[in-house]
């Protein structure tokens, strides 16, 4: 559905994208996970034909982003990081303006507008001005707008940025619903690992304009070498204990009075592992998270520190009316 080849985007001396290549399959949810400033939004802007790459190219829905921009735009829906609806207009009016921009024929326009309104649960608020909407509702309106013309590919740039936990969860629910009901391929960017883990079929880790790993969340987590069990002893670690005798143990690390063991399936194997152990003070265990994977791959955590103004910040700045 999307083929990206060797994309480079340079801004003066700074390389926002540094030779990116990957493919996205039809009808999957593909996540681009990385810290702020990793190049996720730049990549979305290039794929949506709003920016031209310095080098390389890409195909979206079989159309070249450089030579067939209009066809690409007909094939995609985009939800930008900052809400881009006109907040003086009502939700319905925003949708109507965009339905006209996409050339949706009059006969099916009204039906389609009420369909997408229903999809995101905004039908009872459609005649309110968007400035009366909450952050989550605005984001849902953007989703409805992006889906109006039945796009094949749907880009979601940080769909839950700045939302409270409850709105975030309901946004996840809507995203899953879209995939089920609209049959689109979704590319979403995020820097929340639990979001990527929960929603995406495959994830590309992106940092400094490069993809450093690409796989399904479970495969990525296997890279860590299994679930982590940390056993602390009250005295010295008993040296006679040979943990590696079990098939499910991958790796053992001993340090002072603790042993860290990497094993498969902690839930079923923990009991066997610690059976007949003497002098145990505490046992802790963790399933590895995508953050552990990212840390291991990049030596850096996901909380980037680039100066990227959130939507609320920008909104406060310009909303002087």
């Amino acid at each position: 559905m999307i083929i990206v080849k060797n994309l480079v985007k340079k801004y003066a001396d700074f390389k926002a994208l540094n030779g990116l290549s990957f493919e996205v399959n039809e009808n999957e949810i593909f996540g681009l996970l990385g810290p702020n400033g990793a190049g996720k939004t730049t990549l979305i802007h290039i794929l949506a034909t709003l920016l031209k790459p310095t080098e390389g190219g890409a195909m979206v829905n079989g159309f070249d982003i450089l030579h067939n921009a209009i066809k690409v735009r007909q094939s995609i829906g985009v939800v930008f990081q900052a809400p881009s609806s006109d907040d003086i207009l009502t939700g319905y009016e925003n949708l109507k303006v965009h339905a006209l921009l996409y050339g949706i024929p009059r006969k099916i326009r009204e039906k389609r507008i009420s369909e997408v309104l229903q999809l995101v649960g905004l039908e009872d608020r459609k005649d309110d001005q968007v400035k009366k909407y909450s952050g989550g509702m605005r984001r849902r309106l953007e989703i409805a707008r992006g889906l109006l013309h039945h796009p094949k590919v749907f880009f979601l740039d940080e769909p839950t940025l700045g939302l409270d936990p409850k709105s975030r969860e309901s946004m996840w629910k809507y995203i899953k619903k879209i995939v089920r009901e609209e049959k689109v391929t979704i590319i979403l960017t995020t820097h929340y690992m639990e979001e990527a883990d929960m929603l995406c079929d495959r994830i590309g880790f992106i940092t400094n304009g490069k993809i450093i790993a690409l796989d399904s969340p479970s495969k990525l987590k296997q890279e860590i070498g299994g679930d982590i069990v940390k056993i602390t002893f009250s005295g010295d670690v008993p040296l006679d204990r040979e943990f590696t005798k079990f098939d499910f143990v991958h790796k053992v690390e001993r340090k002072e009075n603790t042993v860290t063991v990497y094993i498969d399936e902690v839930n079923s194997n923990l009991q066997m592992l610690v059976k007949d152990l003497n002098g145990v003070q505490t046992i802790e265990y963790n399933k590895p998270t995508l953050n552990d994977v990212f840390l291991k791959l990049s030596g850096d955590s996901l909380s980037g520190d680039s100066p990227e103004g959130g939507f609320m910040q920008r909104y406060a700045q310009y909303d002087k009316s």
Partner: protein
Amino acid sequence: MLNTINLNSRIVLGQLYALWLREVKVFLRERSRLVASTFTPLLWLFVIGSGLGSTNLQIGTDYEKFIFPGIICMSVIFTSVFFGSYIIWDRKFDFLKSVMVAPSSRTTVFIGKTLGGMTTSLFQVAIVLIVGIALGINYDAMTLLQILSIVLILSFSLTSLGLTFGSYIESLEGFQLIVSFVVFPLFFLSGALFPIDNLPAWLKIITLIDPATYSVDALRNTILHLGTYSFEHDLAILLLFTLVITLVGIFSFRRMKAV
């Protein structure tokens, strides 16, 4: 082939309608905009009109009536050119991004936005025209038609001019500052406030370059029958100016960055 052209022109017309509709709805909901921008022309008309009118100028009619066509042009000049700042707002709020990612051409976006700005100027001119009746000015159907055509052309070209500036300038503050340098000369040098027949040579030349001069003259012709040039002469020059500035505007929109 013919079918695809029909289809495409239907889509383009729909897109123009969408962009126009949005501007008009926003304008009608922001009443303060209408009130604020109508106040200034009326202030000029009554304060300067009555003030200078009391000094017995040799211009062949009341001074208030004499500057009335100029005040119509003034309200068009100010509203239209400053309308360009809305493209900067659209960029800041990312509305423009959502339009740019739709399958519409930049030319369509430019023309649609211009038509929207033109319509908002028309609302204002209507108010000024109604005030004119109170001054004792009578319009017949022909006069109204001529006023309408001049106002449409002038506001279309000056909205284009404003949007052209807006496509190059990133901050609203910068826009206000730069556009002030354009708007005030356009107005003061147009002969809106004085007759241009007996000016010193240097001033005469500048007024001849100012496109607004021809709109003031055309309106003075049709409303007061006091024009320096013929209506057709004025109309031709205005159309030429509109063509040039529209092409410049389309060029500017095409090279404008989307993000």
